[in-house]
């Protein structure tokens, strides 16, 4: 979900995605960066994202991932599910 959310802002390469998540979560979410790639590949298999080679600003080739319409739908589903769970947790916590 985080990856999909990140890609909603625009195409990005693997390193960029890792950077982005790290920065946004203010280093709270410290994932093993390697696990990003299997996740990306799985999503590509599901058809949520596509990828292509692009030149980066510093003239290097990087694999850039892009969200597909199917990916957007999936993100919407996951976000709504997440919000429901979050809301539920918040209510439980709030009432305590």
């Amino acid at each position, binding site marked *: 979900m985080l990856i999909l959310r990140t890609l909603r802002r625009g195409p990005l390469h693997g390193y960029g995605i890792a950077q982005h998540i790290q920065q946004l979560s203010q280093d709270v979410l410290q994932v*093993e*960066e390697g696990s990003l790639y299997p996740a990306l590949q799985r999503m590509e*298999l599901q058809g949520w994202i596509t990828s292509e080679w692009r030149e980066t600003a510093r003239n290097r*080739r990087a*694999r850039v991932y892009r969200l597909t319409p199917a990916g957007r739908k999936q993100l919407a589903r996951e976000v709504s599910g997440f919000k429901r769970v979050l809301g539920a947790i918040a209510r439980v916590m709030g009432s305590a």
Partner: protein
Amino acid sequence: MQFLQRLRFLTRRAEYERALDESIRFHLEMRTQENIGSGMTPEEARWAALRQFGNVTLLKEGMREMFQFLWLGTLLQDTRYAFRMLRRSPAFTIVAVLSLALGIGVNTAIFSIMDVLLLKLLPVKNPQELVGVRETLSFPAYKKLRDRNQVFSGVAAFSPIPISVTLTGSAEATHANGQMVTGNYYSVLGVDPIFGRLITSEDDKIPAVGGPQGPVAVISYAYWNRRFDLNPSVIGKSITVNDLSVTIVGVTPARFSGVLGGVQAPPDVSLPYMLQPQVAPNGYAALWLNGGRGSELEYDESDGYGFRPIVARLKPGVTTAQATAELNVLYQQILAERHGNSPNERERLENMQLRLELRPAGKGVRAWVDEKPSMLLLVAVMAAPGLVLLIACANVANLLLARATARQREVAVRLALGAGRYRLIRQFLTESTLLALLGGALGVALASWSRNLMLAIISYSSRRPVHVEAETDIRVLAFTAVVALTAGIIFGLAPAFRVTRTGFVTALRYDAGKQSGGHSFWEPGKILVVTQVALSLPLLIGAGLLTRSIRNVENFDPGFNREHLLLFSTQFLGVNLVRSGQLLKEIQERMSGLPGARSAGLSHVPPLIIPRSRVSVNGLSRQVNAQNFASRLLIGSGFFDTMGIPLLAGRDLGIHDDENAPKVCVVSKNFADHFFPNSNPIGQHFSFMRPGAVYPVEVVGVVKDVKGWWAQPGQAATFSQSAYCPLMQGLPYDEVTLTVRVAGNPALVAGEVRRRFQDIDKKPSFGGQNLGRPDRRLDVCADITL
């Protein structure tokens, strides 16, 4: 979608892996750069990046697995590996593949022929319902049978006839295979046209005209392709068939090639029976249609021996046995009606013995073998090539085994490194299967070549060209694939098990390569050698016997001089019966005094294979059995001279023995001994019991016995009781064979004979398979019609 992606991954695996590698490298470099930027040394930065990333190898493994159907992946891997191994030892590969290709090729070729001859059903509706009447029924009897029976949903008849065809606007006539059919022929068979329409009962109503559309014809797809280039405008076109103009109304499907099946030439042009008077004024079709000279059925093979024109479709649920029973009741009625009110006691008794027999015709009317024997025949014929294949397998297995022993160390190392035994066996099997498939692929190519060779040899050594519509179709390919795969597993399994069985500790020992523990009697190598010898032995014996029988055939003494004989058979096409005598005289005149020929003689059919006639002496018709039959050959003057058959008593036949002279004949020694024991045969009288007629003759001479075949194939040649009658006294008929004793160059003589035949008639009223084939020497006595 996912599946496709996975497939893409499998095929472009290297590309994917490279992409992944590059992505990871890029990631790590960026991270390292950043770490350096935040004040680390390059060394520290790199390690930190790696730490943060996690286990790269594990990651890659995981990602790969995400894509794979494991078995397919390993299969591909094994195949690639196997290819590599085979490439590394090309000598081994070539030997193995070639010997397998030979084995598989021969099997495929013979199977494809046997498939057509014995297994394949006719491409018609419910072919298993079709039955053929084994005996020859006359046309009137056929009609009664067709209209009165309760067991068939339809009874059709057909007669193959040779024809000459002239296309409109063309002066050139060509020979073709014709067929006369009853109007219900196609509907009984359940064949639909691919183009136009087929012959119906309407087209077969009025003698000499046909039906409302006049004379019509249906052509086969092959003929359409050959003569008309598949041009659709063929419908409605007129062609001239033996002087009769007919309109083409339709084309039969490509798969349908008549109902004869087996080795007969498929019909090119089919015509309704009612056109017989113009199209086939003589021949079997004429005899049949005109009531077989007035008989319902005679046990006489001279009128179209082996000619079985009737094919019927059983009503659903009716068995062949039920149909046969009812058919014979009906048949006895028909026979009784024939004799009307004068039932001769003897004839009545003879009729009682006459029975009709039905044969399954789903594989073709002339599939001359019954269901069970045909399977036996198949097994028998396939046994020899099967043995060859087994030997080839044993060969390859032996080679593999030798190689496997050499690879023992490699295998041991792999086992030691943790490879599973079954994984290794699978790998070995992949290798042997690959070998087998390569052999199979080459074998298929070899098969069509060797099949053509075999058919050419059979055509050459038998009297007629053999038509087998054999092709490498899906059935044959399936057969080959099964054979190849089975072979691969058979010869791959033993070496695979053997090599992987060894404990790796022993195998890894330094001297392991030298010995392979060959103390046991049940050593696979030894077993293989024993098997090979055991398999080769029967083949050798078989080949030896075959060679001997061929030698026997070559040394076979037919009772006449076989050296330097040339044989020309020809048929009169579209020639009216009335003309045949005149034509014969012309031929006889023309062919005398051939340069390079010592002598020449005519006979109505080729000598050696002579139709039989029933013989009655002194008006006494003896019992119907083989003893009272004689081969009846019609000959011209000079025949005995040419054949080298010595005259023992009396006189030879001459030109003066024509249609106006008293009916005479010359008989063989054994004929005389059988019918006229203890008396002088010269001057004796006897009669040929022709269907519906009796031909009395007087014996004027006796000649030496000559061997020959009865009209039935498959029987051994015996000295046949023969009677030779003058050509001019046996008219009419529609074929003639010229036998020439050559003194000079046979090819020159043959050329001259052909020229003279053409001089006699510019139109191809002469057709015949042997005409113009000077290579047909009589001394090939394997000349048995199939």
